[in-house]
């Protein structure tokens, strides 16, 4: 179809066209496209405009984050030409770590396992929010499928060895929803089942993640999915050679997900179209995985990438950006014959990868595909023309310059405003006993056991999950980070190098102060890695931002503040970013009113471990061992679970001290390496009281005296027990090695607060005053069954 009046259309008409066809292009972009075709003295084809819409979509180009921003902070103003480059990328450039092998350019970031190792780790996380809001099961499936293909398409193909998942839902008790919106419970169940069915079928352990509940996610759930891959260091770069064939492996192409990529630039409303929903088939993707692993071993291709948002238009276009492309879509394998040529080009049918294959190797690749029952077709060649030329048989669909497509996107300033909030710090009255408070906290959705979800995921497949989501004799104690030993893929059971993955996420802090919330997220991620004994001096981060409409200056203001927080915090922790993603427009119109999510920043962290045999888990190991607190308990119950449950007006966030925290963490990992520290757990939701309770779930409990704890002057009992903040870790030290431990912890802030006991009770006191004394088994039963009872 020819857009027969495109080049002469008026502004209004252009906008109307964009809306009618669902391109999500703004006026500046439409005019840029119009100018390009005016210069060519012809109207574009439908396929050409669709290609531009896909290529320039928020999803593919991340034009807000990498665009210019005018930031108003109180009375100050700052101009960013490219916000992304001046925050996230800046950190990585500045830190300039040699072990970062590939950053920001490929599907995933890549770091080396160790300087001696031949292996490297690829890590990527993304969101799949809008699809999960309208079709939770399918949305979650295709989200997982997509991020796995990202890893498969990294370098010359990495082997996926760990999946991660982080969810944010509305409160589960909410059932009555306005028309067009699914209840949190339905979304929750669908998403969990989708991640389960896809991840399990792919044979990739899902072993790290988190679940969060808040009103602000009621209409717009967040579903983050991540994947770690293992790749040989000498296979991390790809280059398409002129004359190579464009081979597509995997499932056939249908009408699935047409306008899925542009969909991510639009608010959810009741008219969301069903073709934006894609259906996943894990078996097809597993076939693709198996073909790639075999073909990679035999070196049958010199570049590959996944078909994600934008389908062929993005994948083929990206691979051929330097060489040019000549493709015939009539060669594509189709689900049914009614798919139109332009639809083939932008369809987002799942489980497809595009490979650049030398002509003399295509036969061998086809042979592998035959054995693995994986369809393959050849669309054309990377022809060296520098142009994108796409045909359907003889009909020319697209004839555009690659340079326009990838460089032509217009930039324009967006305004961002951030005003700090007023601080208030009310405190509750002192109580005789805090057992009731602790019980309420343990039963809170954000604190309670996530076993109901975790046990539906196969976290043991591939045999390498050393620190699992739950550890201890009966698997009762939740852990801080997953530790993976990839011996089955490397087939090197004598090599004990592995890695740990953790997350940091604090939407509550984001509501109070987005800048500080970035410190909270990064601190939590690094601290969790330290708790299992990972080499945190080699921590690499992923940033995943989610927020509402960026054209709202206040939303973009929160976003900009958080990005600056990321820059400053990551510099302080010396942790480079290697990849990331952002998701805007997480908002909905309900009865004419706009509902937007709170600024949500997920930090995913990965770090190698020299010897996985030394990794520790959080459950107490031996009665009589001393318990130490790393860090300092500070005033402020802002963003705490306590404040939320008890409706306390307190938004004071304990101030992070990255330099001091880092010293503490280095002392901790040294203590773990020397076998002095035998368990460690970070203090997060629910404060020290909740953390000690969880460490006691495996049978041994504790006796604690807060009088001995390092704490801020004038701190209240409630804050001692339940304040969250940053930097705090609880560690059990081998009684026989306590002296040696104190020697290596000389420069760290550690205080001995009590010891491990076999009484079956946790006993927390302050000097002579008893604060909490409760049976552990009872507390565990409260904590364990919350989710099950709600579903």
């Amino acid at each position: 179809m020819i857009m027969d009046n495109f080049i002469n259309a008026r502004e209004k008409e252009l906008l109307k066209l964009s809306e009618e066809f669902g391109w999500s292009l703004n006026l500046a972009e439409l005019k840029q496209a119009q100018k390009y075709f005016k210069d060519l003295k012809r109207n574009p084809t439908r396929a050409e405009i669709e290609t531009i819409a896909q290529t320039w979509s928020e999803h593919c180009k991340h034009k807000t984050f990498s665009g210019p921003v005018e930031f108003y902070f109180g009375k100050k103003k700052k101009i960013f030409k490219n916000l992304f480059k001046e925050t996230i990328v800046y950190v990585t450039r500045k830190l300039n770590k040699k072990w970062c092998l590939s950053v920001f350019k490929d599907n995933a970031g890549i770091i080396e396992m160790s300087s001696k190792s031949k292996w490297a780790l690829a890590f990527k996380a993304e969101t799949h929010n809008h699809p999960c809001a309208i079709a939770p099961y399918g949305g979650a499936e295709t989200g997982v499928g997509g991020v796995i293909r990202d890893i498969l398409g990294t370098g010359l193909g990495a082997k996926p060895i760990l999946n991660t998942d982080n969810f944010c839902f509305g409160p589960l008790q909410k059932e009555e929803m306005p028309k067009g919106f699914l209840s949190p419970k339905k979304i929750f169940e669908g998403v969990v089942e989708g991640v389960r069915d896809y991840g399990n079928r792919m044979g990739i352990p899902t072993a790290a993640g988190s679940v969060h509940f808040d009103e602000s996610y009621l209409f717009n759930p967040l579903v983050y999915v991540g994947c770690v891959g293992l790749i040989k260091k000498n296979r991390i770069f790809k280059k398409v050679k002129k004359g190579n064939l464009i081979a597509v492996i995997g499932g056939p192409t249908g009408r699935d997900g047409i306008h899925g990529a542009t969909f991510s630039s639009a608010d959810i409303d009741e008219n969301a179209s069903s073709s934006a929903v894609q259906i996943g088939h894990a078996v097809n993707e597993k076939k693709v995985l198996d073909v790639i692993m075999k073909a990679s071993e035999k070196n049958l291709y010199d570049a590959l990438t996944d078909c994600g948002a934008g389908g062929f238009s993005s994948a083929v276009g990206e691979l051929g950006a330097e060489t040019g492309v000549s493709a015939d879509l009539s060669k594509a394998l189709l689900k049914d014959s009614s798919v139109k040529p332009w639809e083939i080009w932008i369809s987002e049918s799942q489980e497809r990868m595009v490979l650049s294959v030398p002509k003399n190797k295509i036969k061998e690749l086809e042979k592998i595909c035959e054995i693995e029952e994986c369809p393959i077709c050849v669309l054309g060649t990377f022809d060296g023309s520098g142009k994108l030329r796409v045909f359907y048989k003889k009909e020319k669909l697209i004839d555009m310059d690659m340079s326009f497509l990838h460089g032509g996107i217009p930039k324009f300033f967006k305004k961002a405003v951030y005003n700090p909030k007023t601080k208030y710090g009310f405190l509750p009255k002192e109580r005789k006993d805090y057992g009731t408070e602790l019980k309420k906290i343990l039963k809170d959705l954000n604190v309670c056991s996530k076993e109901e979800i975790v046990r539906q995921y196969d976290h043991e497949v591939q045999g390498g999950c050393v620190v699992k989501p739950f550890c201890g004799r009966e698997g009762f104690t939740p852990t801080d980070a997953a530790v993976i030993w990839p011996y089955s893929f490397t087939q090197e059971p004598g090599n004990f190098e592995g890695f740990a993955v953790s997350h940091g996420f604090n939407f509550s802090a984001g509501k109070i102060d987005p800048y500080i919330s970035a410190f909270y997220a990064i601190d939590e991620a690094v601290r969790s890695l330290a708790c299992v004994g990972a080499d945190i001096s080699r921590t690499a981060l992923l940033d995943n931002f989610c927020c509402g409409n960026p054209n709202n200056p206040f939303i973009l203001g929160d976003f900009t503040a958080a990005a600056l927080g990321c820059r400053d915090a990551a510099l302080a922790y010396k942790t480079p970013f290697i990849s990331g993603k952002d998701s805007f427009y997480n908002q909905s119109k309900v009865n004419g009113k706009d509902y937007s999510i709170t600024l949500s920043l997920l930090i995913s962290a990965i770090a190698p471990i020299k010897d996985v045999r030394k990794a520790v888990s959080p459950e107490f190991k031996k009665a009589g061992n001393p318990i130490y607190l790393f860090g300092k308990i500070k005033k402020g119950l802002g963003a705490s679970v306590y404040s939320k449950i008890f409706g306390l007006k307190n938004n004071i966030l304990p101030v992070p001290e990255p330099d001091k925290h880092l010293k503490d963490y280095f002392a901790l990992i040294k203590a773990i390496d020397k076998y002095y520290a035998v368990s460690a757990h970070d203090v997060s939701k629910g404060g020290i009281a909740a953390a000690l309770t969880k460490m006691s779930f495996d049978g041994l409990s504790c006796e604690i005296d807060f009088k001995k704890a390092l704490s801020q002057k004038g701190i209240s009992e409630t804050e001692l027990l339940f304040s969250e903040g940053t930097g705090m870790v609880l560690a059990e030290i081998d009684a026989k090695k306590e002296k040696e431990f104190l020697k290596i912890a000389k420069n760290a802030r550690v205080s001995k607060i009590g010891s491990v006991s076999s009484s079956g009770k946790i006993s927390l006191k302050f000097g002579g005053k008893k604060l909490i004394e409760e049976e552990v088994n009872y507390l565990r039963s409260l904590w364990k069954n919350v989710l099950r009872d709600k579903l």
Partner: protein
Amino acid sequence: MKPKALILRGAATNCDLETAAAFRYCGAIADIAHINEVLKGIKKLSSYDMLALPGGFSYGDDISAGKIFALKIRTLRKDFEKFIKDEKPVIGICNGFQVLVKTGYLPENREGLRRASLFLNDAGHFICKWVKLKINKKSPCVFTRGLPDEIELPMAHGEGKFIAADKKELEKIIAKNLSPVFYSDNPNGSQADIAGICNEKGNLFGLMPHPERNFFSLQKQKKESKGFLSEGYLFFKNAVDYCR
């Protein structure tokens, strides 16, 4: 001569690498092959001493777990039946066990009929957790020889509830000690707590929990230093020793 193990996979078989690693660690040569390579004659069953059907979700477990893989294996019935008859060790783990049951090879019967099934867990969904298993010392099973009275292994399945075709079949399994492993705390509703079954010669064995995932002590959920190798190691060591 090192004994040779064939690790047979289909689409979406997932545990082939760790199963191969287990056999290799015990001193065997382990080849991983797709069922299509066997069907096309590229790889020959007869050139191997042992056969393993690893865990996973072969063909998505669509229709029912292990069903499509079983249908493919049935097209080469003679070769498989000869392999079993020659008393070469065959182990099916998790999805592999489901395949052995769906082909009708387990429980063993002369007519090659289906005499049992593995049905949806009582919980109604997939469960991944560590389970304790009692070892039946009277069982003829080659793989479980010399194991302690109780061991633990991780399980990870949705369809693992063992159901015998009738009471007689179940009684036969119990009476002839054809169930080498019982759950101590039944996690899926299996009849008579059955976690796995073998044939009368003991060379053919299928079980739901994963011995290859408790091969090294560091794979355990309880972190304690108790030597490098763990209970699962013996399953594979037994098979390799048997072939020597």
